[in-house]
């Protein structure tokens, strides 16, 4: 399949009073057209930082921001901010933020909020943009008259659909979904997942789905990247990760998910995720890992290719 996004050695460090936070520490992955990559992991492992690094929505306290982000063969890390804003952000890569449905402007009608990126980025005139906004709302399963409503008149699920419509406004090829259903009820969540599946099938969108919920990610993900302590510890297809996880962290994480239909004894991972100001030496998972060997404390395991298109960073698999 055609590879549209390739990320190599991406780093994003923040400067804080306590020291440098290595939120994203040299991660590499790629994304193919029409494919969904889920980035999963516990809170504080760098999932959202990865997203804002790709979208270049950087806070002021950036210490290190480097690596390669290659979009359709072009390294967009080398673009200046102005060009990035005009050509990439929202046009090629857009994002649905976590809890975005609560950040709709309460005093502006929904239709205009969806039309805004069209007016600003695509330079459409207002009426044309508004009628396009209605089309977009219909695309995400809302009646067109919703365009004339204010956010407080809509339910949580409807607002989430509006935010998805905004992300789709400029026809991007990649949409980053950061916990797109985290504040929604289970039935509404299932409805939104169905919508995302439908959109993906109809317009060969690529998603990067960021979630802590491995049950939910199975609804969309073709590939999965498991993150721990600012690093990707395992990357593979959905089947490989769900049915045959190799990294001990992925195994433990999967074993901790309650399932409804099958019976299994749940496990948990003792301890807490590492502090990214002073992460543990060697493999960052070694203090919580049941298979720690002496080498794990000394050397960082390489992110190595174990099978075709499958990577694991663990000394159990050589290295």
């Amino acid at each position: 399949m055609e590879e549209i996004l390739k990320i190599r050695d991406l780093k994003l460090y923040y400067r804080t009073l306590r020291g440098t936070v290595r939120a994203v520490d040299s991660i590499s992955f790629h994304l193919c057209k029409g494919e969904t990559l889920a980035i999963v992991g516990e809170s504080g492992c760098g999932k959202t930082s990865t997203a804002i690094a790709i979208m270049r929505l950087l806070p002021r306290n950036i210490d290190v921001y480097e690596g390669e982000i290659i979009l359709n063969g072009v390294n967009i890390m080398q673009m200046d901010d102005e060009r990035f804003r005009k050509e990439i952000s929202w046009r090629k890569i857009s994002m649905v933020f976590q809890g975005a449905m609560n950040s709709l402007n309460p005093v502006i009608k929904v239709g205009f909020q969806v039309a805004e990126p069209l007016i600003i980025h695509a330079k459409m005139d207002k009426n044309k943009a508004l009628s396009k906004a209605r089309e977009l709302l219909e695309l995400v399963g809302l009646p067109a008259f919703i365009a004339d409503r204010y956010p407080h008149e809509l339910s949580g699920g409807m607002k989430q659909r509006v935010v998805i419509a905004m992300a789709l406004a400029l026809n991007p090829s990649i949409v980053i979904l950061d916990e797109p259903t985290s504040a929604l009820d289970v039935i509404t969540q299932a409805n939104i997942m169905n919508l995302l599946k439908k959109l993906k099938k109809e317009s060969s969108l690529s998603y990067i789905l960021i979630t802590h919920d491995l049950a939910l990610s199975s609804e969309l993900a073709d590939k999965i990247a498991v993150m721990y302590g600012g690093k990707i510890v395992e990357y593979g297809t959905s089947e490989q990760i769900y049915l045959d996880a190799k990294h001990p962290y992925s195994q433990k994480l999967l074993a901790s998910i309650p399932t409804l239909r099958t019976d299994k004894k749940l496990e948990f991972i003792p301890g807490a995720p590492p502090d990214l100001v002073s992460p543990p030496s060697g493999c960052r998972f070694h203090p919580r890992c049941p298979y720690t060997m002496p080498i794990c404390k000394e050397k960082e395991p390489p992110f190595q290719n174990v099978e075709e298109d499958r990577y694991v960073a663990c000394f159990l698999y050589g290295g």
Partner: protein
Amino acid sequence: MILSANSLIEVQDLKVWFPIKRFLREPIFVKAVDGVSFNIARGETLAVVGESGSGKTTLGKACLRLIEPTSGRIIYDGKDITRLSNEELRSYRREAQIIYQDPFSSLNPFFTVYRALEEPLIINGVKKGRSEQIYKVLEDVKLTPVEEFVNKYPHMLSGGQRQRVAIARALILRPRFIVADEPVSMLDVSVRVEILYLLKELQHKYGISFLYITHDIATVKYFSDRIAVMYAGKIVEMGNIRSIIAEPIHPYTQALVEAIPDPDPRNRFVERKVIPGEPPNPINVPLGCRFHLRCPYSDRRRCLKEEPELRDFGDGRRVACHYAEQFIKR
């Protein structure tokens, strides 16, 4: 309803209506809980599951008299406590505790762990052996070595550790009944199970009855014996957790179970059968069956007019649907 000798707490036809005052007009009511009955045996866990706005938190708080019930009865240990004054409620306040959802806001940021746990003892006039009790309860919730934790402030603790402090605080007066309101939903997946297992262990050790309020059916199996599914202020189905997951009878329960994915890579190729719409506005609940607007099986006649009663189907299963018989696979 018959008073079963074994039940610790029994709720009969409980209603909690919140009035909305309107100028020169009759007030209207938000019927958050509208005629709910259940009982919880000693050492048993009843899970209450429902979408947001279904009234589950209001129900939990009303059971503790933190919200005054509009009508109905709450019988605790054979004694009607629905209308007792605050003074008379003292012993109930000791025996019935709550664990809140968000350990980031339920702990006072200015109190150390020690102080947070001392507070209930001070209020209840315990003078002797406070620190022994605090050390004991911290061991119970596995915040060990205890010395490391007693002088910490909440901001120095992780989410899971904070929730343990909140559990310790609920536990320190040796309660017999605890309302656990979404105790794990703010925590990381890897920690959730640990906390649920801890609650289960404490239940066995001290014989505590729990009312476990959650929106996540998947966790219920690991920490409950029975489940009550709430929709728009009413219980629509009740019964043994395993039989409900295996064979949900009420169309709403069916939808709820169908909506939850298990981690399975094949999920991405299929669309889930889900019901449209959102739960009704509790000010203006539909007449007849409250679920009829979203129900795929509504007959558009009886379901619109007649409110279904919670009927008994044996083996503890009770369902409020006119057509429940049709959904029983036998």
